[in-house]
């Protein structure tokens, strides 16, 4: 018996809450970025924090996700993290739309 027949005969329903959790696991992992000698999460908080520090200039010290202080070029890091964030969110949105139609 193939899987689609099995699903149909067992009257299995697609679990949207579990699908959301699976997507969160998958795409949160894709937000992890190694750059400029540190490990970062390309999430809204990190990008917003970096954007809020304009008065400090380009070069600054930042704690990475392993709590290691790393000297970074803030502008370059914003660009890198923003690019990753945008790409991952696009993929996340596409896959969610695909799964949302399942019943």
């Amino acid at each position: 018996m193939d899987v689609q027949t099995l699903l149909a005969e067992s009257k299995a329903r697609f679990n949207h809450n579990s699908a959301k959790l699976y997507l969160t696991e998958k795409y949160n992992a894709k937000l992890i970025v190694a750059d400029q000698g540190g490990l970062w999460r390309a999430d809204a908080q990190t990008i917003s924090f970096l954007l809020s520090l304009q008065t400090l200039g380009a070069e600054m010290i930042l704690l990475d996700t392993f709590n290691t202080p790393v000297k970074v070029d803030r502008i370059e890091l914003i660009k890198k993290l923003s690019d990753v964030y945008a790409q991952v969110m696009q993929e996340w949105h596409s896959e969610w739309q695909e799964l949302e139609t399942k019943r």
Partner: protein
Amino acid sequence: MTRGVLLFAFNSTEYNYVKMAEFTTRKAKHLLNLPCTLVTDKSSVIDASTELFDQILIIDSDSDNQIDGRTWLNKGRYRAYELSPYDETLLLDVDYVINSDKLNLLFDIMDDFMCHETISYLIHGHNRHEYLSEKLSLPTLWATVIVFKKTNRVKQIFECLKMVQENYEHYANIHKFSTDSYRNDYALTIACRIVNGHTYIKSDIIPWNLLHIHPKTKIYNSNTEYIVLNDNWQRGKIKKEYVTIKDIDFHVIDKTNFMELIK
């Protein structure tokens, strides 16, 4: 600098671990583009497709361990450090399904050693931590995926793993866990703690969750994606539910399910 995958596989009467290792090797070569070395014993190597592996190392397996009344040949993992032919090694359980290129990132982000601590179960609940025992205990590290370089500290971790394996009852007594079965996860947890001076080193932890397929959940292969099917019991009735997953790695705890998956 050489990189590669190291797999331990000793066949038992119930399960063909070498076949599982072959499946994992095909996936590792296709998705990670890494060479693979199999560590096995004389009786299991007969089943191996020798052309698939870059190297096969034959050692004596240790049959002195049981789980659910059957032999579980999972001891001797501490030998990974001395046996690995690579400078940077990805040591995997053979029932771990590589289904993305995510593991390659580990080589770029590790200092010299990394393994999983946090976990979650697909569709079947959502659990972040397992502990060695119920009260005031250490969060379990998972030996399912380990990446390491050959440094003095990592050598000490694997030597300590050997010491914990050889004195498992003693450590079980201290940490109040069962000695019914030897678990590499528990031994690794203790070894890492000892070598790190009983401190928590965040950079030793893989920064995403280890995704498990629960034994009560079935996983099926369907073309490019996998389907995870769960029986959700509600008021004495089964409500069958499923999710589809793709481009994500996972660990299948139920070996029977894993064998069905790779047929």
